[in-house]
């Protein structure tokens, strides 16, 4: 398990899917066209999605055990 994982500010997410396209682990899905959902078991905390999100709504957080 990676030390960090991505977290989406779902209240402001526009569900554009930019993050999903760049995730190397296919850890992101767009839930019902409303927000981006991260599969924490797949996410390796690389931060690619955070860089890509045009609204800068993704941050990396330390995994809680």
């Amino acid at each position, binding site marked *: 398990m990676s030390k960090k994982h991505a977290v989406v500010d*779902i209240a*402001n997410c*526009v*569900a*554009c*899917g*930019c993050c*999903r*396209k*760049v*995730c*190397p682990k*296919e850890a992101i899905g*767009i*839930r*019902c*066209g*409303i*927000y981006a959902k991260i599969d924490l078991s797949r996410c390796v905390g690389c931060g690619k999605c955070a*860089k*890509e*999100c*045009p*609204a*800068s709504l993704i941050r990396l957080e330390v995994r809680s055990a």
Partner: protein
Amino acid sequence: MTPKKHWYDYLWICTIVYFTLGFFNIMFAWLGLISFFLPLLIAIIGGSKAFCNRYCDRGQFFALLGGRFGLSRKKDMPGWLKSKGFRYGFLIFFFIMFFQMLWNTYLVFAGATLKQAVKLFWTFKVPWHWAYHGDAVVGAWVPQFAFGFYGIMLTSTLIGLIVMVLFKPRSWCVFCPMGTMTQLICKAKNGKKVKAELAEE
């Protein structure tokens, strides 16, 4: 590892083809209606933003130019530009301008003369007469709609290019009227279900 490429990852070509065709023959502007109805149909019937997430040529076009070709500063957008107020305000503004375009089409249908120009940023009339090759069989309103629609498509792409350069490649997607509209439809359709799920988590 980079994500696998699919056939639909090359739809950005459509953006280039669309504007090129419309430069030579304005009637091709009508094709743009596909990228108007398809996202709405997918949202209404499928309840998803699969259009944005997979097929949208414009989003891919910005991702390519801003990402691969490095034409973006890749900076955060200012807060107001991604606020809900601006997103919904822009959607309403877009709607009003769209109906104004339809009204102009109607006026030509009712007898006004065809204006062979493309309106940019809802203000500047750019001559475009070379792309017009005589009256359509059906009537002058057909090319009038084409000029109007092409203007909307070109204007929104230009705005998208500006925010692409200034901020992140796909900044346009944050306030794109189609994106906002399809998300609103999805919220109306799936909102309850999703809220219940979130409450459980």
